[in-house]
């Protein structure tokens, strides 16, 4: 009796697994960690609606680019966009999915979130070790009303290569010539000073524990963990707080339609309310895929996400793309992603 019970249970189990396997194969993708929460959320909901799952490995942007080039995944994901000439060389098509912001976070006793304002040059000087105390003249001048302590500044940066670091160093390179000349912009750089911590959570923990520290994390992370952030002065000289409306403002001023390969980096954008460290995250697929059906499934997923995923993205503190940009992306799909016969792999509704 017992044996038959076990056999029945095993059979049921196998049937359950078999059922899953019998459904359409999962969409496979790999890359950036920054959009992972929203991709996972979308994938979960999409699976409930359509039965098609997505297997996304958040291994980092560099890994995503490597995997798509090795053709082990259907789509790659990267925070740092590939340059148009690189796209051409590799035969890839690139399009953005969501927008997010990077926020400086601080831990200075007595200072409330948003109480301190910094500008780009000051931020670059802090991260270069040129400004070493919180009551430095440069910081005091930007915050005449705030009583700053004479605590030493401890810089916390990412130790792993990261799209967040790319966006942050890209911003510092634009606003500070020193930074551009001495350090540069990349997903990993030679940091002049400070502690390296692994991942957004590592930086948040480092800043949370070290008095007088400053670091930078994705906005979603800062918002969910209630970190103390700073305001920034943007290109127009306005003081802005990191919030969804200001990230959207930065994205609104960009001429996406005329940027080949959507190669747009949203840092230091003009506009009175633009948050200066804003960035889109990107998807990479082959223009002439070996398996057009797989790419069609992936595009179908992103099409669904553009149409129905905005609220989910906002819930997780990401900013959906403006509708005009989405229309543009759908046109790009129809024009550039073709099967062997030169027909579009997927046509959006």
């Amino acid at each position, binding site marked *: 009796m017992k044996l038959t019970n076990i056999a029945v249970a095993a059979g049921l189990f196998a049937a359950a697994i078999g059922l899953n396997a019998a459904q359409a194969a999962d969409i496979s993708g790999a890359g950036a960690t920054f959009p992972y929460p929203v991709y996972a959320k979308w994938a979960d909901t999409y699976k409930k609606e359509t039965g098609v799952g997505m297997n996304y490995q958040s291994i980092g942007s560099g*890994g995503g680019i490597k995997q798509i080039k090795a053709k082990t995944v259907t789509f790659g994901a990267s925070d740092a966009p590939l340059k148009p000439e690189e796209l051409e060389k590799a035969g890839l098509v690139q399009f953005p999915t969501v927008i997010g912001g990077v926020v400086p976070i601080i831990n200075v006793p007595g200072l409330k979130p948003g109480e301190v304002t910094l500008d780009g040059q000051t931020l670059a000087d802090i991260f270069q070790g040129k400004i070493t105390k919180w009551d430095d003249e440069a910081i005091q001048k930007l915050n005449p009303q705030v009583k700053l302590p004479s605590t030493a500044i401890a810089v916390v940066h990412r130790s792993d*290569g990261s799209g967040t670091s790319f966006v942050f160093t890209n911003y510092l390179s634009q606003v500070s010539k020193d930074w551009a000349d001495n350090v540069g912009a990349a997903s990993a750089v030679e940091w002049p000073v*400070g*502690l*390296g911590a692994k991942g957004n959570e590592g930086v948040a923990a480092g800043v949370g*524990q070290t008095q007088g520290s400053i670091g930078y994390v994705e906005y979603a992370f800062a918002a969910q963990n209630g970190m103390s952030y700073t305001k920034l002065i943007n290109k127009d000289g306005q003081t802005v707080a990191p919030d969804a409306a200001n990230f959207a403002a930065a994205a609104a001023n960009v001429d996406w339609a005329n940027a080949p390969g959507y190669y747009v980096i949203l840092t230091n954008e003009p506009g009175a309310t633009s948050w200066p460290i804003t960035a889109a995250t990107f998807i990479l697929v082959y223009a002439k895929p070996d398996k057009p059906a797989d790419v069609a499934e992936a595009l179908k997923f992103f099409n669904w996400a553009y149409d129905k995923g905005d609220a989910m993205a906002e819930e997780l503190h990401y900013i959906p793309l403006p509708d005009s940009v989405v229309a543009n992306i759908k046109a790009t799909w129809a024009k550039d992603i073709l099967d062997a016969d030169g027909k579009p792999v997927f046509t959006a509704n």
Partner: protein
Amino acid sequence: MVDAAMTGVIGAGMDSAKLKRMRRFRAGDATFRGLTLGAALLVLLLLGGVILSLIHGSIPALSTFGLDFLTTQSWNPVTEKFGALAPIYGTVVTSLIALLIAVPVGIGIAIFLTELCPPWLKRPIGVAIELLAGIPSIIYGIWGLFVFAPFFQTKIQPFLISVFEPIPVLNNLFAGPPYGIGILTAGFILAIMVLPFITSITRDVFDTVPPVLKEATYGLGCTTSEVVRKVVLPYTRVGVIGGVMLGLGRALGETMAVTFVIGNAHKISASIMAPGTTISASIANEFTEAVGDLYTSSLIALGLILFVITFIVLAAARLLLMRMNVKAGN
């Protein structure tokens, strides 16, 4: 053995069925020998494969930078200039700090357990040590970052800084500011991690000392510390050094726990409280996002260097043992 048995069997005039059975035994023996030989050769094959792929992967970096790779500490992914000195320094120094703490403590625990411990306390301490060895390294890392580092930063580091302030060389070695994480913290965490290895091995080898030797020494009127120094340690030195080397091996290669608490800065600082990095921490941190062949190759070259360091440590341990044996007159 089977051969001898068979001739014996034939001599005794056994029938052919038994003879057949004996032949089968011999064939079974040959298969057994072949299987174990295969398992042993597999290790050599794997090791060779790893070495070859490490060398192959690090050729681009080593041919670009040459010996400078070993002697410079600039690690700049933007300009693609890589030097391994800072991770090498961090690896060696954190491991040394770990051994400096863990060896005396570990041997102390082993001596207590084998010579002095009341029987009812033996088991709890023994089990605790084995549990310590079973904790995954990521747990040590998280504990180190969230519990140990803040405690270290607010309580121990300010104390160390103020104590060593007036002493010329040591004040550089223990210079602030107290970050909580850094080379010294990594050394402490590593010490906790290698402690169970050193303790359990030394305890086991201490147990192999014949009681009659110890009893004779006690009979001569020696104290416990004399017995340990003159009889137990000389008798077990090979095992003790083996335990220390095993601990050192783990300390050199430990990755996750170190990454959490070392500060991950590609820099060599005079102060051991400053952030640094180790070879394995650098690889774990940077490999996923290493874009560009030279960057990836430099990280693989780091792995090759770690391999060489481990090999040197093992060779040095062997040499040390040989010297000691010669000195002891064996």
